């Protein structure tokens, strides 16, 4: 039972991340490689605030979101004026730099040893201790993220994002300042990722840089693409499916030392296969990359 709850909570966290990334990959149509870095920013921010200042959950969420949005602003500054190609490179650079920051700024993040002893989240007077209660919190957080993202994607703002994805020049000719739209979408996506990071930190109670690598960023892209980009349920489906696959591998009996690599090898291969043969993903309607 504990095991199942753990898998479900992880699935919720990944689903939040996939939902946030779908705004960028699915709606704006840009492959951002920095989502794991933003996830990590949220996680470390929440962890350090909770440990050193005993802040409550809502406060740590707020600051984590702000931190992630600020870091994403760095990328927005540079890349949004230019072609998508450069934006992907910029996100690649941001991911690597933030990751190396996690590893090297030992005075802040404890480097490769990670940050442990993160307390369970505190909502006003109530501390969420049990796994079951945490699962409820995770579901609520996922529901909130999911709802916010869908309100945006189905609004006229979302319509402009889709227009940017299809034909940015056309959108510009109609008077849309596409750079502002991209920056805002990216900031919103970063905020959701930061929030997921905070949730994760409180759940795992120990975080280290290995959870926020480039591989993780590509995994998130896979979840979005495989689940069905630019759709209401696609990112959630993709997240749950890939977490299930990961757990399924566990039952095959792979030694723990290699399971991570095998899993990621499969993600990489699956990404290629889906792009080639089923660009709508599992439950989507938009054909990605065509």
């Amino acid at each position, binding site marked *: 039972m504990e095991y199942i709850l753990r898998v479900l909570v992880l699935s919720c966290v990944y689903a939040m991340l996939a939902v946030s990334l779908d705004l960028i990959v699915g709606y704006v149509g840009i492959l951002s490689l920095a989502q794991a870095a933003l996830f990590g920013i949220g996680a470390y921010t929440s962890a350090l605030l909770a440990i050193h200042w005993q802040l409550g959950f809502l406060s740590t969420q707020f600051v984590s979101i702000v931190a992630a949005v600020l870091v994403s602003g760095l990328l927005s500054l540079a890349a949004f004026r230019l072609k998508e190609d450069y934006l992907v490179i910029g996100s690649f650079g941001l991911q690597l730099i933030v990751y190396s920051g996690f590893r090297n700024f030992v005075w802040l993040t404890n480097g490769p040893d990670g940050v442990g002893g993160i307390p369970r989240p505190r909502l006003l007077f109530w501390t969420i201790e049990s796994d079951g209660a945490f699962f409820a919190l995770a579901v609520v957080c996922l529901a909130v993220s999911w709802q*916010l993202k869908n*309100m*945006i994607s189905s*609004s*006229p*703002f*979302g*319509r*402009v994002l*889709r*227009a940017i994805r*299809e*034909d940015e*020049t*056309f*959108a*510009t*000719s*109609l*008077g*849309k*300042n*596409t750079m502002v739209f991209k920056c*805002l*979408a990216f900031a*919103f996506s970063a905020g959701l990722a930061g929030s997921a990071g905070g949730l994760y930190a409180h759940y795992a109670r120990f975080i280290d840089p290995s959870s926020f690598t480039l591989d993780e960023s590509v995994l998130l892209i896979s979840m979005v693409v495989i689940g069905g980009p630019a759709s209401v349920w696609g990112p959630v489906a993709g997240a749950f499916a890939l977490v299930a696959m990961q757990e399924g591998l566990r039952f095959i009996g792979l030694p723990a030392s290699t399971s991570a690599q095998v899993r990621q090898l499969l993600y990489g291969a699956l990404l290629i296969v889906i792009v080639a043969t089923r660009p709508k993903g599992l439950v989507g309607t*938009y054909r990605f990359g065509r």
Partner: protein
Amino acid sequence: MTLDFPPVLDEVKCLSCERVSKHYGGIAAVQNVSCRLDCKQIVAVIGPNGAGKTTLINILSGFVRPESGRLLLDGYDITGRPPHDVAVMGVCRTFQEVRLLREATVVENVLLARSTQAGESIFGAFGGASRRQEVENRRNCQELLDFVGLEGCHSHLVSALSFGQQKLVSLACCLATGARFLMLDEPFAGLHRREVNDVAVVLRRLQQEGRAILFIEHDVAAVRELADSVLVMDEGRILAQGPIDEVLRRSDVAEAYLA
């Protein structure tokens, strides 16, 4: 004088460029061109391929910044303003290769074009006001589509329409932006005779409403029927300007076409 804020659309009367030039590599796309477009005017731009006609539209709509010369809106210098700003100021253009969202419906394309939607701000996306406005916008867009002659196609995908119908959708999008100055790049190319007439009727009505239209065209008949004045371009320069019959009688114009 630099403009800090766009002039009120209803009062804007004239879009013009003054001695603009633009080179690509060593080739002059546009050289020292000056022209003006006033409200209630229809101007046709004709000339052989490569004459610089599309570049002229790109400059007038802000998509290309001229190396020299100025772009003026009612005398205010708007040279170098980004194209989305120029569009908001009331200048809308279509593209030779018809740019639209192909996997979206006709009405979604026109809804996109509609200016000043509260729902387009990221915070407005959460308000109930944007939903109400959306309903009204949808009604307006459907009226616009009927105006250009596309009743019954509203929920078709753009990719399912004929080329001529797609051009009409582009035109509807331009109108949805509320633009005063419409610049159409080959609006009649690829259309049947009857479709050409339909579009011409729409353009005439727009002219009477007070809008200004500039269009690039190769179809001399359409030009003769619609245009008040004609701009002949060749190799980046303006060869002649004026009423169509006058211009076509000139020998250098005939030469540019036949040569």
